[in-house]
């Protein structure tokens, strides 16, 4: 059954979700995310998806670039880590980041829904793992979790 809807759905709640909840009641700032993926198509889609939910985004092309960013002092609330990437893949980058003491939420993004693959990736230090591309619902749930943990 198809419903016809002319116009765009407006969701204020999603915009608010993107803002960090600061305990002391001072200014709220946006949740920052790092997209780590070698596929320009995925980077573009995830960038728009995360921005739409009100998050700040930055993107790099492989695990090494992500590690270098953290080494240079940058930090993000949420990292979307692709599994297969050249130079340094997702599991390796995740292990390095955790070894550096990085506590950011790291969510793995895999192309295949293989249990074995997901488990191996999770073992490298992920907080969660999803099949790409992410959906609005998944991202909204992640943001809610981030806000709760803050």
């Amino acid at each position, binding site marked *: *059954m*198809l*419903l*016809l*809807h*002319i*116009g*765009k*759905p407006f969701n204020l709640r999603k915009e608010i979700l993107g803002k960090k909840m600061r305990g002391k009641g001072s200014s709220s700032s946006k949740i920052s995310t790092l997209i780590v993926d070698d*596929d*320009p*198509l*995925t980077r*573009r*889609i995830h960038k*728009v*998806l995360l*921005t*739409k939910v009100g998050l700040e985004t930055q993107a790099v092309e492989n695990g090494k670039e992500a590690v270098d960013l953290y080494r240079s002092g940058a930090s993000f609330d949420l990292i979307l880590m692709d599994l*297969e990437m050249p130079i340094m893949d997702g599991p390796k980058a995740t292990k390095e980041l955790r070894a550096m003491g990085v506590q950011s939420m790291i969510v793995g993004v895999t*192309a295949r829904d293989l249990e074995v693959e997901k488990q191996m990736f999770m073992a490298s230090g992920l907080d969660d793992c999803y099949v*790409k*591309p992410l*959906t*609005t619902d998944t991202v909204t749930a992640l943001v809610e979790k981030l806000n709760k943990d803050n």
Partner: protein
Amino acid sequence: MEVVQMQRRFVEYAASLFREGFLDGQFTQLQQLQDESNPDFVVEVVSLFFEDSEKLLNDLSRALDQQNVDFKRVDSHVHQLKGSSSSIGAQRVKNACIAFRNYCEEQNTDACLSCLQQVKQEYSLAKSKLETLFRLEQQILTAGGSIPIMME
């Protein structure tokens, strides 16, 4: 033709693409991401997909044409194509890639060549149908109408 008629044609055509399995829910997700700050998002992303795919299909033809086929390389290309077709919701292209990967694992050149033909065919169909969809969309916009968003 009146705008309402154009809109109906667009909706019917889009519905047929979903019904026949050319597009899946991921395409709908992309449509929902399009807004004032990204007004051409769907066309932009699908164009990226066309560019990527054409390059990958050429690379695949070349790789399978070698004396000693590097199946790892072939598999890597198919993996990429599967990923991008999945990202835009090109379901039949994605499924053709899944079948292709099985034969890469078996290192079966003939089967791979046959799969490549399948993928090329599905890609060609997907491309032509998406281009038609965009043309219908453009007609509506040119006539001053707005694009119906479909929700199932």
